[in-house]
């Protein structure tokens, strides 16, 4: 009697639990189904509560993230397209000025009735224009390749001393012209993660600026300082300097400082430098007191021990 009842009860419990489990599995599958449907439909608005401490809520949250990542990819693609477009328009804009001046001088020369002195003058200007164009083209190509990712930088451990001296040698002539001395404080040569070719380019750009905006007979200092994770390379000049409001702008494409409008330049050097550093996991900062001193600090990653 008792035994029979126990068996009955046990059987009932089994049936009940099987039934409940079956219903639970059904419900769970239905929910997962809904979630997948919404992923396929690229819809982030799921009806499930995402802020619960439960498995389903977690699943929903992840589904929404997938959808958002997808749409973010789409947005990013669009942004890249836009970048190229603006790059193109910037390029055409930048090339317009030298091109139009060249064609103007050529027109004048074709008209004739010019003194030989004037002719000479115009030819030199045309030559300068084409040189500038060439340089511009060069920079633009580098930039666009970097920007779009056509060139991959390959940061490898390499001694920093060589890189710095390479970059100095690139501006040595210009510095000598203004009688500007470039001095490096003594430092230990350490291997840093960087792509030497491009890093030399970035450093040269910064040095070129320093030479360009410094008065004659001044000094440019280079110092190296090791941090736990990065090594900081400072380039200090005593030129016109940059007001704090402009600190961010100077790294923008084609931006020209307000107080250096007179000086020749395209506004590409610092942009390129920051781009190059970013691409190899470093960064560049500026600190300046106008008319006193200006320091550009480049941060390159130390090699992992």
């Amino acid at each position, binding site marked *: 009697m008792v035994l029979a009842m126990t068996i009955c009860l046990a059987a009932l419990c089994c049936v009940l639990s099987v039934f409940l489990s079956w219903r639970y599995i059904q419900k769970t599958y239905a929910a997962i189904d809904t979630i997948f449907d919404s992923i396929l439909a690229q819809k982030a608005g799921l009806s499930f509560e995402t802020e619960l*401490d*439960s*498995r*389903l*809520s*977690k699943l929903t949250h992840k589904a929404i993230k997938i959808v958002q990542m997808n749409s973010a990819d789409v947005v990013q693609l669009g942004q890249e397209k836009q970048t190229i477009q603006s790059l193109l328009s910037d390029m055409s804009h930048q090339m317009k000025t030298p091109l139009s001046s060249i064609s103007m001088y050529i027109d004048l020369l074709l008209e004739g009735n010019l003194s030989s002195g004037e002719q000479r003058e115009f030819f030199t200007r045309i030559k300068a224009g084409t040189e500038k164009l060439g340089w511009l083209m060069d920079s633009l190509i580098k930039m666009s390749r970097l920007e779009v990712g056509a060139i991959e930088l390959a940061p490898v451990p390499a001694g920093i001393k060589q890189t710095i001296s390479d970059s100095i040698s690139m501006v040595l002539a210009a510095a000598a012209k203004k009688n500007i001395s470039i001095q490096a404080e003594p430092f230990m040569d350490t291997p840093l993660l960087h792509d030497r070719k491009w890093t030399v380019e970035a450093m040269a750009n910064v040095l070129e600026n320093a030479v360009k905006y410094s008065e004659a007979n001044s000094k440019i200092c280079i110092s190296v300082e090791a941090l736990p994770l990065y090594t900081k390379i400072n380039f200090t000049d005593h030129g016109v300097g940059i007001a704090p409001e402009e600190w961010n702008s100077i790294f923008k494409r084609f931006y020209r400082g307000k107080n250096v409008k007179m000086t020749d330049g395209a506004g590409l050097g610092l942009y390129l430098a920051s781009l190059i550093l970013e691409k190899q996991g470093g960064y560049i900062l500026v600190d300046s007191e106008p008319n006193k001193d200006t320091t550009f600090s480049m941060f390159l990653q130390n090699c992992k021990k």
Partner: protein
Amino acid sequence: MKNNNTAVIHRLIRRNLKANRKRNFFLVAAIALTTLLLGSIFSIGFSILDSVKMEQLRLSGTTAHAAVGRPTASQLEQLKQLPYVKSVGTGYQVADIRNTPEMGGAYLFLHFFDKTDWEQFRAPANTDIMGDYPQAEDEIMASRGALDLLGIHEPVVGMEIPLSYCPGGEENDLQNKTFRLSGWFTSYSLMTQTDSLLVSEAFAEKFEASREKYLAADILFVEEKQVSEYFERLKLDLDIPADQAAAVSQSNERGEEAQVPMLLALGAVAVFFILTGYLLIYNVLYISVSRDVRFYGLLKTLGTTPKQLKRLVVGQILRLCMIGIPIGASAAFLFSVIAIPAAIGAWKFVSTGAVLSFSPIIYFGAAAFALCTSLLGAFLPAKKAAEVSPVEAQKFTGISRPHLHRPAHGKPYKMALRNIFRNRKRAAVVLLSLFLGITAFTAVTTLAYSMGVDQYIDSLYQNDFVLYDQSLFSDQPAQPFDDSFMEQIAALPGLESCHTLLQEYMQLGYSPEEFGEYAESRLEKLYEGKEAFTEEDIRKSFIGFLVGIDGMELTELQSAADQKIDISAFDRGEIALIATDNPAYFPRVSQLHVTPMELSTDGENPSHGTEVQIPFGGFAPQSLESDGSLAPTIVVSKSFLSSLYHSPAIREIRIDVADGYEKQALEALKQISGNNSAIRRVSKIEAVSVMSGARTVMLVLGGGAALLLAFVGILNFINVMSMDITVRKMELAILESIGMEKRKVRRMLLFEGLGYAVMTLLLSATLGNGAVYGIFTLFKLQVDYATFTYPILPVGLVFLMIFTVCLIVPEIIYRSIAKATLIERLREKE
């Protein structure tokens, strides 16, 4: 489906436990203490219940629920078929043992029990069973009491015991036989005067007449709780006629109600323990959570949900419980094994030896209650941790209400008072736990002190020694108190007074109007209504005792009672008294008709003297009553009694000796009475030693428990104080930096400790003592000889201790933090 994120919480629990060793110690101590105290209380309660139950069982001598006398064969057959009857045993008295003079007044029988009856009903009610139930015809088993009466003090299996007996109680059929002892046991049955010698079935079979006359069926019902219902059904089902004896066993008539106040008191104590345990656990955890607010806030910031935080706090306490509860439970077990038998024995709850209950309920119960207490204690702290606001937690510094207005000029005691009540809840918890500890201690010591041995002994024993003639009630009185004995008594060292009490048989004139009610109550008590008596029967057997006493001594005894007796008339033999505490039985008695009786040497055919009539003059104390007779005991003056009898027997001798002579007198008395089994001795000094043992046990156990409680209170105080000062480290450093001297800071902390001590003192002096008196009043209901005695010395000592702790603890903690220089302390964060 729940999220699968418990592992990390377990890790946090583990790590947090590791990081808070001091706090864990406090908590484990609190949990273990709670378990220990609860386990001990439960153990005491259960053991008392079991002991009382066992006592009832042993005293009644059987586990059977009911008995039916002289069952017919068909009734027996029917009995075994009844669904509510679990088992049936039978047995009968085979023969009366012929008394020998050494046996005093004891009656011995040869009794037979069948296998069921012995194994299931009788054996469990006896202890120390050696050997087996008799099998062979000449085998015999006896209780130690019976063997003692037979003069055998060191029994050996197989020893020969010659006995003469009368089968079926027929005097003229005397038989002799030598039995072999097959076993013995200790019995506690009330009827020690009528102990049984157990015989084998082979022997019993030969006495068919005895079987017919005395056969009884012992019955065990299936359910203990419904004995009386089953019994009624049984009477109907078996169709038991009115003249057939059938009764429910005594042990089932008395319930456990008698223990209810005791159990209630134990329950109250348990609640008390739970409360103190709760307070300590709550306080330690709450302080810990408050201190770690940043930690919980950070966890919440990082995404630990309120539920997970709760689990984190509760999980810690659960793990600590896993350590604390087993410790406490094993301590409680040890305590039970060591202390409880002593306690129950000493407190005289039972007379048949204490039974230690090892019921698993005790330990599971204690563990469960301790667990509940711990969880309850963790509830609010867990809630606090769960409700932490992440933003607030980031700003938390540990000071709840900054109060730095003009501190340098504040008086230290004023600042101390403010500091105490800065966190009111905490102050309340500390005060409450200190208060509870002290009150518990005061209560226990008050009870122990109030249970003074002297008061108790004086209430029980009027005289230093009393000697009783035990053989007085037997067929052959031994008359041990002869003239030479009395001479020896008179020579006792330091004897102050010696009074004798005389006692003889008498027949009392009966009339239903005067004695009907009383006689009925006696019949009920003596025969349990098993036998029917006619009025004529009662009149014939209305035999009782006449007790003779000096008027002066009666006055002493009487002083306790209210009634006034004309002592001079009593001395002159003009009035007689009835010894009872129940005057309501005798509302219409005016004259007493007393016929002196003297028993012949063979105990039969008493000779009656001439009836005398004496006026009834009031009531004498019950202590003078000689129990066991149908008629009430009549008290008259000694001279009057002597005039009625040839040589009246001395019932008892009451002896008082001068102070300081008690021990010598006791030794002398031991020598005088020797090992005369007829003399029973009761002495105050022997009782005192037993009683003071009881008091010591109570003091040690109760005082120990109470001290533990006081200790809990002090632990709480130390915990609060040390946390408080550590948290206020920064604040104290700031106070010092803005010009408060170290001396002043220390004074302030000292005043804080003093504040707690004084407030505790005030609370326990008012509320606490009120509660103690209430508890005493309850106690007095149980132990009526207690007189209220306030334990000034122990309470004073405890207060001194609390004052010392309250004053020293802040100083010690301050010193430990003040070691660092001020600058270091100011710089330090967290």
